[in-house]
């Protein structure tokens, strides 16, 4: 429970969520592609840039929370300002085929592995 007029314990609990780098990312793979997901509420595609080079992907941008006129902030927890995350993948990324989608404040980036990095089946010859 949060008292609108301040509660030190609640502040500590809320601060915990952003003790790490912002934005937080989840990464998974399906063999041919890696996917990077980041929670970016209140951000539009115009505010985000995704750059790929070799085996690195950089997600950067800016979140602006405009000041509302005519009031006093009782609590300000939501992070704002410039952000940037650089992720180094264990394989090269096919930069031409990268796709990024922003939906409900969640950014999902599809990073196809370069041909050389894809898993392949090695035919076994019978001797």
């Amino acid at each position: 429970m949060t008292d609108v007029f301040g509660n030190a314990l609640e502040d500590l609990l809320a601060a915990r969520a952003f003790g790490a780098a912002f934005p937080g990312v989840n990464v998974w793979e399906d063999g041919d592609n890696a996917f990077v997901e980041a929670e970016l509420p209140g951000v539009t595609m115009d505010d985000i840039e995704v750059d790929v080079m070799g085996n690195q992907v950089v997600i950067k941008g800016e979140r602006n929370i405009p000041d509302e006129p005519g009031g006093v902030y009782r609590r300000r927890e939501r992070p704002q300002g410039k952000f940037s995350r650089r992720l180094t993948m264990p394989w090269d990324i096919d930069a031409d085929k990268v796709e990024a989608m922003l939906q409900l404040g969640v950014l999902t980036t599809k990073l196809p592995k370069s041909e050389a990095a894809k898993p392949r089946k090695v035919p076994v010859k019978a001797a």
Partner: protein
Amino acid sequence: MSDTAIQKNQSASTTPERMEQQTYYTPLVDILEKDDSFVFKADLPGVRPEDVDIRYENGVMTLSAQAQPRQSPGTNYIWREYGVGPFYRQFILSVPIDPNGINAELKNGELTLSVPKAESAKTHKIPIKST
């Protein structure tokens, strides 16, 4: 710039709140007080409008929201910094409000709640007469 080198089978854990055997996440909020209302803004990434539930009872406003799972259960994660699940947070309002006037809007994972104060709690400017 923060750098993260992804390696296989490595995972950074998130520390969600545990309640009633289920995992809940605390949404981050900004609360603005105006003369006649409060404005709550909460970050609810991955939440659709139909998944939000807002209740007000006896001076307590409860915000709960369901973030639908975005990956299938068998997903092969190689790095995790956050979990996805229901959001939950309660606010004690020490100022009487008008619950019928609460207005809620969700856009790009950002919830805006306008909560008008009850007539008795609004700021009244007293005109001074000169004699």
